[in-house]
Protein backbone atom coordinates (compact mmCIF):
# COMPACT_ATOMS: atom_id res chain seq x y z
CA UNK A 1 0.00 0.00 0.00
CA UNK A 2 1.16 3.49 -0.83
CA UNK A 3 0.04 6.89 0.31
CA UNK A 4 0.41 10.33 -1.27
CA UNK A 5 -0.24 13.82 0.02
CA UNK A 6 -1.60 16.16 -2.65
CA UNK A 7 -3.01 19.67 -3.04
CA UNK A 8 -6.08 19.87 -5.27
CA UNK A 9 -7.11 23.21 -6.71
CA UNK A 10 -10.62 23.34 -8.15
CA UNK A 11 -11.76 25.52 -11.02
CA UNK A 12 -15.00 27.41 -10.49
CA UNK A 13 -17.12 25.06 -12.61
CA UNK A 14 -16.11 22.02 -10.55
CA UNK A 15 -16.86 23.36 -7.08
CA UNK A 16 -20.28 21.73 -6.92
CA UNK A 17 -19.19 18.29 -8.13
CA UNK A 18 -18.48 15.55 -5.55
CA UNK A 19 -15.14 14.84 -7.20
CA UNK A 20 -13.35 13.39 -4.18
CA UNK A 21 -16.31 11.12 -3.40
CA UNK A 22 -16.29 9.95 -7.00
CA UNK A 23 -12.63 8.93 -7.16
CA UNK A 24 -13.17 6.85 -4.03
CA UNK A 25 -15.84 4.95 -5.93
CA UNK A 26 -14.20 4.73 -9.32
CA UNK A 27 -10.83 3.51 -8.01
CA UNK A 28 -9.63 1.38 -5.10
CA UNK A 29 -8.34 4.31 -3.06
CA UNK A 30 -9.17 5.76 0.32
CA UNK A 31 -9.34 9.56 0.45
CA UNK A 32 -8.82 11.57 3.62
CA UNK A 33 -9.19 15.37 3.64
CA UNK A 34 -6.80 17.06 6.09
CA UNK A 35 -7.34 20.72 5.34
CA UNK A 36 -9.49 22.62 2.86
CA UNK A 37 -10.81 26.01 1.84
CA UNK A 38 -13.66 25.74 -0.61
CA UNK A 39 -15.79 28.76 -1.45
CA UNK A 40 -18.36 29.65 -4.09
CA UNK A 41 -15.90 30.35 -6.87
CA UNK A 42 -12.67 28.67 -5.88
CA UNK A 43 -11.30 26.07 -3.62
CA UNK A 44 -8.41 23.89 -2.57
CA UNK A 45 -8.18 20.65 -0.64
CA UNK A 46 -5.16 18.99 0.97
CA UNK A 47 -5.79 15.31 0.55
CA UNK A 48 -4.22 12.00 1.50
CA UNK A 49 -4.84 9.21 -1.00
CA UNK A 50 -4.04 5.64 0.08
CA UNK A 51 -4.09 2.49 -2.05
CA UNK A 52 -2.02 0.48 -4.52
CA UNK A 53 0.32 2.76 -6.50
CA UNK A 54 -1.38 1.92 -9.80
CA UNK A 55 -4.81 2.83 -8.39
CA UNK A 56 -3.49 6.11 -6.96
CA UNK A 57 -2.02 6.99 -10.35
CA UNK A 58 -5.32 6.28 -12.07
CA UNK A 59 -7.21 8.35 -9.50
CA UNK A 60 -4.80 11.29 -9.95
CA UNK A 61 -5.11 11.07 -13.76
CA UNK A 62 -8.87 11.08 -13.42
CA UNK A 63 -8.73 14.23 -11.27
CA UNK A 64 -6.59 15.96 -13.88
CA UNK A 65 -8.92 14.88 -16.68
CA UNK A 66 -11.79 16.46 -14.77
CA UNK A 67 -9.93 19.78 -14.76
CA UNK A 68 -8.67 19.68 -11.18
CA UNK A 69 -5.09 20.91 -10.68
CA UNK A 70 -3.10 18.28 -8.79
CA UNK A 71 0.16 19.25 -7.11
CA UNK A 72 2.39 17.67 -4.49
CA UNK A 73 1.55 18.92 -1.00
CA UNK A 74 4.74 21.03 -1.21
CA UNK A 75 3.31 22.75 -4.34
CA UNK A 76 6.17 23.89 -6.62
CA UNK A 77 9.47 22.35 -5.55
CA UNK A 78 11.46 23.44 -8.60
CA UNK A 79 13.16 26.71 -7.65
Amino acid at each position, binding site marked *: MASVKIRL*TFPEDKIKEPIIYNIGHEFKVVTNIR*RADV*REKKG*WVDLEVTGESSEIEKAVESLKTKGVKVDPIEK*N*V*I*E
Partner: protein
Amino acid sequence: MSKIKGLICRECGKEYPAEPLHVCEFCFGPLEVNYNYDWIKGQISREKIEKGPKSLWRYIDLLPVVGEATVGLYAGLTPLIRAHNLGKELGLDELYIKNDTVNHPTLSFKDRVVSVALTRAKELGFDTVACASTGNLANSVAAHAAEARLKCFVFIPGDLEAGKILGSLIYQPTVVAVNGNYDDVNRLCSEIAAEYKWAFVNINIRPYYAEGSKTLAYETAEQLGWMAPDHVVVPAASGSLLTKIWKGFNELEKLGLIDKVRTKVSGAQAEGCSPIATAFKNKTDHVKPVKPNTIAKSIAIGNPADGYYALKAVKESGGAFDTVTDPEVVEGMKLLAKTEGIFAETAGGVTVSVLKKLVEQGIIKKKDRTVAYITGNGLKTQEAVINAVGSPVRIEPKLSAFEKILKK
Protein backbone atom coordinates in the same frame (compact mmCIF):
# COMPACT_ATOMS: atom_id res chain seq x y z
CA MET B 1 18.68 23.91 26.92
CA SER B 2 19.36 24.95 23.35
CA LYS B 3 18.19 27.52 20.86
CA ILE B 4 16.01 25.07 18.87
CA LYS B 5 12.99 23.53 20.58
CA GLY B 6 12.10 21.58 17.44
CA LEU B 7 9.74 22.12 14.53
CA ILE B 8 6.21 23.49 14.70
CA CYS B 9 3.29 23.44 12.26
CA ARG B 10 2.55 26.90 10.90
CA GLU B 11 -1.14 26.04 10.75
CA CYS B 12 -2.17 23.89 13.73
CA GLY B 13 0.82 24.47 16.03
CA LYS B 14 1.60 20.80 16.54
CA GLU B 15 5.22 20.34 17.62
CA TYR B 16 7.79 17.93 16.16
CA PRO B 17 11.43 17.07 16.92
CA ALA B 18 14.15 18.89 14.94
CA GLU B 19 14.38 16.20 12.26
CA PRO B 20 14.21 16.23 8.46
CA LEU B 21 10.43 16.78 8.39
CA HIS B 22 8.51 19.42 6.50
CA VAL B 23 4.78 18.60 6.54
CA CYS B 24 2.51 18.28 9.57
CA GLU B 25 1.22 14.72 9.79
CA PHE B 26 -2.11 15.99 11.07
CA CYS B 27 -3.16 18.97 8.96
CA PHE B 28 -0.52 18.74 6.18
CA GLY B 29 0.51 22.32 6.96
CA PRO B 30 4.17 23.35 6.50
CA LEU B 31 6.58 23.05 9.43
CA GLU B 32 8.99 25.71 10.59
CA VAL B 33 11.72 25.93 13.20
CA ASN B 34 10.53 26.61 16.74
CA TYR B 35 13.16 28.66 18.59
CA ASN B 36 13.71 29.14 22.27
CA TYR B 37 13.83 32.94 22.16
CA ASP B 38 14.18 33.33 25.93
CA TRP B 39 17.37 31.31 25.83
CA ILE B 40 18.65 33.11 22.70
CA LYS B 41 18.02 36.49 24.39
CA GLY B 42 20.51 35.53 27.07
CA GLN B 43 23.16 34.63 24.48
CA ILE B 44 22.91 37.28 21.79
CA SER B 45 24.02 40.91 21.72
CA ARG B 46 24.97 43.51 19.11
CA GLU B 47 28.58 43.35 20.32
CA LYS B 48 28.77 39.57 20.01
CA ILE B 49 27.38 39.73 16.48
CA GLU B 50 29.77 42.52 15.47
CA LYS B 51 32.74 40.45 16.67
CA GLY B 52 31.50 37.40 14.75
CA PRO B 53 32.64 36.06 11.38
CA LYS B 54 32.36 38.30 8.34
CA SER B 55 29.61 36.16 6.88
CA LEU B 56 25.99 35.28 7.62
CA TRP B 57 27.30 32.98 10.35
CA ARG B 58 27.70 36.00 12.66
CA TYR B 59 23.97 35.41 13.29
CA ILE B 60 24.40 31.73 14.15
CA ASP B 61 22.44 32.21 17.39
CA LEU B 62 19.36 32.78 15.20
CA LEU B 63 20.00 30.02 12.68
CA PRO B 64 18.69 26.45 12.91
CA VAL B 65 21.94 24.55 13.47
CA VAL B 66 23.03 23.02 16.76
CA GLY B 67 26.81 23.01 16.26
CA GLU B 68 29.35 25.15 14.43
CA ALA B 69 28.93 26.24 10.81
CA THR B 70 30.56 23.71 8.50
CA VAL B 71 29.37 24.60 4.99
CA GLY B 72 29.32 27.95 3.18
CA LEU B 73 31.51 29.79 5.66
CA TYR B 74 31.84 32.85 3.40
CA ALA B 75 28.21 33.31 2.33
CA GLY B 76 26.35 36.49 3.15
CA LEU B 77 27.38 39.85 4.59
CA THR B 78 27.04 41.34 1.13
CA PRO B 79 27.25 45.12 0.63
CA LEU B 80 24.36 47.40 1.52
CA ILE B 81 24.92 50.14 -1.03
CA ARG B 82 23.66 53.70 -0.57
CA ALA B 83 22.11 54.13 -4.01
CA HIS B 84 22.38 57.92 -4.46
CA ASN B 85 22.01 57.86 -8.24
CA LEU B 86 19.08 55.47 -8.46
CA GLY B 87 17.45 57.22 -5.50
CA LYS B 88 17.72 60.56 -7.29
CA GLU B 89 16.33 59.05 -10.50
CA LEU B 90 13.34 57.61 -8.64
CA GLY B 91 12.81 60.51 -6.24
CA LEU B 92 13.93 58.83 -3.02
CA ASP B 93 16.12 60.57 -0.44
CA GLU B 94 17.53 57.43 1.12
CA LEU B 95 17.60 54.33 -1.04
CA TYR B 96 19.81 51.30 -0.44
CA ILE B 97 20.51 48.23 -2.54
CA LYS B 98 21.18 45.00 -0.67
CA ASN B 99 23.50 43.53 -3.24
CA ASP B 100 23.37 39.73 -3.28
CA THR B 101 24.64 39.70 -6.88
CA VAL B 102 28.05 39.29 -5.23
CA ASN B 103 27.15 36.59 -2.75
CA HIS B 104 29.77 33.86 -2.31
CA PRO B 105 30.24 31.50 -4.06
CA THR B 106 27.51 31.40 -6.75
CA LEU B 107 26.35 35.01 -6.94
CA SER B 108 22.79 34.77 -5.68
CA PHE B 109 20.92 34.85 -2.36
CA LYS B 110 20.56 31.07 -2.63
CA ASP B 111 24.07 30.80 -1.14
CA ARG B 112 22.52 31.89 2.15
CA VAL B 113 19.80 29.27 2.32
CA VAL B 114 22.01 26.51 0.97
CA SER B 115 24.82 27.21 3.50
CA VAL B 116 22.33 26.78 6.31
CA ALA B 117 20.60 23.77 4.70
CA LEU B 118 23.83 21.85 4.09
CA THR B 119 25.29 22.61 7.50
CA ARG B 120 22.08 21.25 9.00
CA ALA B 121 22.02 18.29 6.58
CA LYS B 122 25.49 17.28 7.77
CA GLU B 123 24.37 17.56 11.39
CA LEU B 124 21.45 15.27 10.58
CA GLY B 125 23.86 12.71 9.16
CA PHE B 126 23.04 12.91 5.44
CA ASP B 127 25.69 12.00 2.87
CA THR B 128 23.63 12.99 -0.19
CA VAL B 129 21.94 16.28 -0.99
CA ALA B 130 19.53 17.10 -3.79
CA CYS B 131 17.38 19.81 -5.28
CA ALA B 132 15.03 20.48 -8.16
CA SER B 133 15.95 23.69 -9.88
CA THR B 134 16.21 25.60 -13.14
CA GLY B 135 19.12 27.81 -12.08
CA ASN B 136 20.31 29.62 -8.98
CA LEU B 137 19.39 26.95 -6.45
CA ALA B 138 21.05 24.20 -8.51
CA ASN B 139 24.25 26.25 -8.86
CA SER B 140 24.44 26.86 -5.14
CA VAL B 141 23.62 23.31 -4.01
CA ALA B 142 26.15 21.83 -6.45
CA ALA B 143 28.90 24.24 -5.35
CA HIS B 144 28.33 23.80 -1.63
CA ALA B 145 28.01 20.01 -1.96
CA ALA B 146 31.39 19.97 -3.70
CA GLU B 147 32.92 21.98 -0.86
CA ALA B 148 31.29 19.75 1.76
CA ARG B 149 32.25 16.52 -0.04
CA LEU B 150 28.60 15.46 -0.19
CA LYS B 151 27.05 13.46 -3.03
CA CYS B 152 24.75 15.69 -5.03
CA PHE B 153 21.76 15.18 -7.33
CA VAL B 154 20.28 18.06 -9.29
CA PHE B 155 16.95 17.52 -11.08
CA ILE B 156 16.07 19.73 -14.02
CA PRO B 157 13.25 19.85 -16.57
CA GLY B 158 14.35 17.95 -19.71
CA ASP B 159 13.93 20.95 -22.01
CA LEU B 160 16.13 23.32 -19.99
CA GLU B 161 18.72 25.10 -22.14
CA ALA B 162 22.26 23.69 -21.82
CA GLY B 163 23.68 27.07 -20.81
CA LYS B 164 21.45 27.20 -17.75
CA ILE B 165 22.98 24.13 -16.20
CA LEU B 166 26.63 24.82 -16.96
CA GLY B 167 26.92 26.69 -13.66
CA SER B 168 25.96 23.47 -11.89
CA LEU B 169 27.71 20.85 -14.05
CA ILE B 170 31.10 22.42 -13.40
CA TYR B 171 30.91 21.20 -9.78
CA GLN B 172 30.31 17.61 -11.00
CA PRO B 173 26.99 16.73 -9.40
CA THR B 174 24.72 14.12 -11.00
CA VAL B 175 22.37 16.20 -13.11
CA VAL B 176 19.17 14.40 -14.02
CA ALA B 177 17.15 15.90 -16.88
CA VAL B 178 13.57 14.72 -16.56
CA ASN B 179 11.36 14.50 -19.65
CA GLY B 180 7.82 15.80 -19.33
CA ASN B 181 6.12 19.07 -18.60
CA TYR B 182 6.91 21.22 -15.60
CA ASP B 183 4.18 19.66 -13.45
CA ASP B 184 5.40 16.13 -14.23
CA VAL B 185 8.96 17.02 -13.22
CA ASN B 186 7.71 18.77 -10.10
CA ARG B 187 5.65 15.75 -9.03
CA LEU B 188 8.50 13.29 -9.69
CA CYS B 189 10.90 15.33 -7.55
CA SER B 190 8.42 15.35 -4.69
CA GLU B 191 8.10 11.55 -5.02
CA ILE B 192 11.88 11.05 -5.10
CA ALA B 193 12.22 13.21 -1.98
CA ALA B 194 9.68 11.01 -0.19
CA GLU B 195 11.34 7.78 -1.34
CA TYR B 196 15.07 8.41 -0.80
CA LYS B 197 16.79 9.29 2.45
CA TRP B 198 18.50 12.33 1.01
CA ALA B 199 18.61 15.90 2.15
CA PHE B 200 16.36 17.46 -0.50
CA VAL B 201 17.13 21.04 0.42
CA ASN B 202 13.86 22.68 -0.57
CA ILE B 203 11.65 19.73 0.41
CA ASN B 204 12.46 17.72 3.55
CA ILE B 205 15.13 20.22 4.72
CA ARG B 206 12.99 23.24 3.81
CA PRO B 207 12.20 24.35 7.38
CA TYR B 208 15.97 24.79 7.99
CA TYR B 209 16.85 25.94 4.47
CA ALA B 210 14.30 28.75 4.44
CA GLU B 211 15.67 30.26 7.66
CA GLY B 212 18.85 31.28 5.82
CA SER B 213 16.91 34.10 4.15
CA LYS B 214 16.40 35.82 7.51
CA THR B 215 20.04 36.86 7.37
CA LEU B 216 19.12 39.41 4.68
CA ALA B 217 17.05 41.24 7.30
CA TYR B 218 19.68 40.88 10.04
CA GLU B 219 22.43 42.25 7.80
CA THR B 220 20.27 45.13 6.60
CA ALA B 221 19.47 46.18 10.16
CA GLU B 222 23.09 45.89 11.30
CA GLN B 223 24.43 47.73 8.24
CA LEU B 224 21.94 50.56 8.84
CA GLY B 225 23.36 50.94 12.35
CA TRP B 226 20.92 48.61 14.08
CA MET B 227 17.63 49.84 12.76
CA ALA B 228 14.99 48.48 10.41
CA PRO B 229 14.25 50.48 7.25
CA ASP B 230 10.90 52.16 6.56
CA HIS B 231 10.17 50.19 3.42
CA VAL B 232 11.67 47.15 1.69
CA VAL B 233 10.98 45.76 -1.77
CA VAL B 234 11.51 42.03 -2.20
CA PRO B 235 11.10 39.82 -5.28
CA ALA B 236 8.61 37.02 -4.70
CA ALA B 237 8.96 33.55 -6.19
CA SER B 238 7.92 30.88 -3.65
CA GLY B 239 7.27 33.77 -1.25
CA SER B 240 9.68 32.33 1.30
CA LEU B 241 12.33 35.07 0.98
CA LEU B 242 9.83 37.85 1.64
CA THR B 243 8.26 35.98 4.56
CA LYS B 244 11.64 35.37 6.18
CA ILE B 245 12.86 38.96 5.75
CA TRP B 246 9.74 40.09 7.63
CA LYS B 247 10.39 37.42 10.27
CA GLY B 248 14.04 38.47 10.57
CA PHE B 249 13.24 42.10 11.40
CA ASN B 250 10.62 41.03 13.91
CA GLU B 251 13.00 38.61 15.62
CA LEU B 252 15.56 41.40 16.09
CA GLU B 253 12.86 43.52 17.73
CA LYS B 254 11.73 40.63 19.93
CA LEU B 255 15.33 40.13 21.13
CA GLY B 256 15.78 43.83 21.86
CA LEU B 257 18.48 44.28 19.19
CA ILE B 258 16.52 46.98 17.35
CA ASP B 259 13.64 49.32 18.24
CA LYS B 260 10.07 48.74 17.15
CA VAL B 261 9.83 47.54 13.55
CA ARG B 262 7.76 49.85 11.39
CA THR B 263 9.01 48.41 8.11
CA LYS B 264 6.54 48.03 5.29
CA VAL B 265 7.33 44.99 3.18
CA SER B 266 6.35 45.10 -0.49
CA GLY B 267 6.54 42.23 -2.94
CA ALA B 268 7.58 42.32 -6.60
CA GLN B 269 6.47 39.85 -9.27
CA ALA B 270 6.62 39.71 -13.05
CA GLU B 271 3.23 40.10 -14.72
CA GLY B 272 3.73 36.77 -16.49
CA CYS B 273 3.89 34.94 -13.18
CA SER B 274 2.13 36.88 -10.46
CA PRO B 275 -0.11 34.58 -8.43
CA ILE B 276 0.63 36.34 -5.12
CA ALA B 277 0.31 39.87 -6.50
CA THR B 278 -2.98 38.88 -8.15
CA ALA B 279 -4.35 37.58 -4.85
CA PHE B 280 -3.28 40.86 -3.21
CA LYS B 281 -5.03 42.93 -5.87
CA ASN B 282 -8.16 40.79 -5.66
CA LYS B 283 -8.17 41.15 -1.86
CA THR B 284 -8.25 37.39 -1.33
CA ASP B 285 -5.96 35.01 0.56
CA HIS B 286 -6.48 32.34 -2.08
CA VAL B 287 -3.30 32.21 -4.18
CA LYS B 288 -4.49 30.71 -7.46
CA PRO B 289 -1.82 28.71 -9.34
CA VAL B 290 -0.77 30.08 -12.76
CA LYS B 291 1.33 28.89 -15.71
CA PRO B 292 4.43 31.10 -15.79
CA ASN B 293 5.25 33.08 -18.92
CA THR B 294 7.97 35.64 -18.26
CA ILE B 295 11.65 36.28 -18.89
CA ALA B 296 12.12 36.52 -15.10
CA LYS B 297 12.49 32.75 -14.90
CA SER B 298 14.34 32.65 -11.57
CA ILE B 299 11.20 33.89 -9.82
CA ALA B 300 8.63 32.19 -12.07
CA ILE B 301 6.93 29.88 -9.60
CA GLY B 302 3.32 29.29 -10.60
CA ASN B 303 2.13 27.60 -7.40
CA PRO B 304 4.24 29.19 -4.66
CA ALA B 305 4.72 27.16 -1.48
CA ASP B 306 4.77 30.25 0.74
CA GLY B 307 2.43 32.44 -1.31
CA TYR B 308 -0.18 32.59 1.43
CA TYR B 309 2.42 33.54 4.05
CA ALA B 310 4.03 36.18 1.83
CA LEU B 311 0.63 37.73 1.31
CA LYS B 312 0.06 37.72 5.07
CA ALA B 313 3.45 39.36 5.74
CA VAL B 314 2.79 42.13 3.22
CA LYS B 315 -0.65 42.82 4.68
CA GLU B 316 0.58 42.73 8.31
CA SER B 317 3.37 45.16 7.53
CA GLY B 318 1.18 47.57 5.53
CA GLY B 319 3.13 47.05 2.30
CA ALA B 320 1.88 46.29 -1.21
CA PHE B 321 2.37 43.89 -4.10
CA ASP B 322 2.88 44.98 -7.67
CA THR B 323 3.87 43.57 -11.05
CA VAL B 324 5.82 44.67 -14.10
CA THR B 325 5.86 43.55 -17.74
CA ASP B 326 8.85 41.86 -19.36
CA PRO B 327 9.95 45.08 -21.17
CA GLU B 328 9.81 46.83 -17.78
CA VAL B 329 11.98 44.04 -16.32
CA VAL B 330 14.65 44.80 -18.92
CA GLU B 331 14.28 48.54 -18.28
CA GLY B 332 14.76 47.89 -14.55
CA MET B 333 17.93 45.90 -15.18
CA LYS B 334 19.30 48.67 -17.40
CA LEU B 335 18.35 51.40 -14.94
CA LEU B 336 20.13 49.66 -12.04
CA ALA B 337 23.21 49.06 -14.19
CA LYS B 338 23.41 52.60 -15.54
CA THR B 339 22.80 54.34 -12.21
CA GLU B 340 24.60 52.11 -9.72
CA GLY B 341 26.92 49.94 -11.79
CA ILE B 342 25.19 46.74 -10.71
CA PHE B 343 24.33 44.06 -13.26
CA ALA B 344 21.42 42.12 -11.77
CA GLU B 345 19.57 39.16 -13.20
CA THR B 346 15.97 39.50 -14.34
CA ALA B 347 14.60 39.23 -10.78
CA GLY B 348 16.56 42.40 -9.99
CA GLY B 349 14.88 44.10 -12.95
CA VAL B 350 11.51 43.12 -11.50
CA THR B 351 12.44 44.56 -8.11
CA VAL B 352 13.76 47.86 -9.46
CA SER B 353 10.79 48.42 -11.78
CA VAL B 354 8.28 47.58 -9.05
CA LEU B 355 10.18 49.92 -6.71
CA LYS B 356 9.79 52.66 -9.35
CA LYS B 357 6.05 51.97 -9.62
CA LEU B 358 5.53 52.02 -5.86
CA VAL B 359 7.29 55.39 -5.62
CA GLU B 360 5.20 56.78 -8.52
CA GLN B 361 2.03 55.59 -6.80
CA GLY B 362 3.05 57.26 -3.55
CA ILE B 363 3.14 53.94 -1.68
CA ILE B 364 6.82 54.54 -0.97
CA LYS B 365 7.37 58.13 0.17
CA LYS B 366 10.31 60.37 -0.74
CA LYS B 367 11.62 60.39 2.83
CA ASP B 368 11.23 56.65 3.42
CA ARG B 369 14.48 54.86 4.20
CA THR B 370 14.06 52.18 1.53
CA VAL B 371 15.93 48.96 0.78
CA ALA B 372 15.61 47.01 -2.48
CA TYR B 373 16.76 43.40 -2.40
CA ILE B 374 18.74 42.46 -5.49
CA THR B 375 19.09 38.71 -5.32
CA GLY B 376 21.07 37.42 -8.28
CA ASN B 377 23.79 38.31 -10.78
CA GLY B 378 23.05 39.48 -14.31
CA LEU B 379 25.76 37.32 -15.83
CA LYS B 380 23.38 34.40 -15.25
CA THR B 381 20.59 35.77 -17.46
CA GLN B 382 22.44 37.60 -20.21
CA GLU B 383 19.99 36.35 -22.85
CA ALA B 384 17.30 38.58 -21.33
CA VAL B 385 19.10 41.78 -22.31
CA ILE B 386 21.16 40.68 -25.29
CA ASN B 387 19.00 42.65 -27.72
CA ALA B 388 18.45 45.61 -25.43
CA VAL B 389 21.92 46.92 -24.67
CA GLY B 390 23.03 48.23 -28.05
CA SER B 391 26.29 47.35 -29.78
CA PRO B 392 29.86 48.73 -29.96
CA VAL B 393 30.69 51.75 -32.10
CA ARG B 394 32.83 50.22 -34.88
CA ILE B 395 35.66 52.22 -36.47
CA GLU B 396 38.69 51.80 -38.73
CA PRO B 397 42.10 51.85 -36.95
CA LYS B 398 42.67 55.56 -37.61
CA LEU B 399 42.69 58.46 -35.15
CA SER B 400 40.52 60.46 -37.54
CA ALA B 401 37.87 57.75 -37.47
CA PHE B 402 37.86 57.82 -33.69
CA GLU B 403 37.61 61.61 -33.58
CA LYS B 404 34.73 61.45 -36.02
CA ILE B 405 32.63 59.39 -33.66
CA LEU B 406 33.59 61.60 -30.70
CA LYS B 407 32.02 64.54 -32.49
CA LYS B 408 28.72 62.69 -32.99
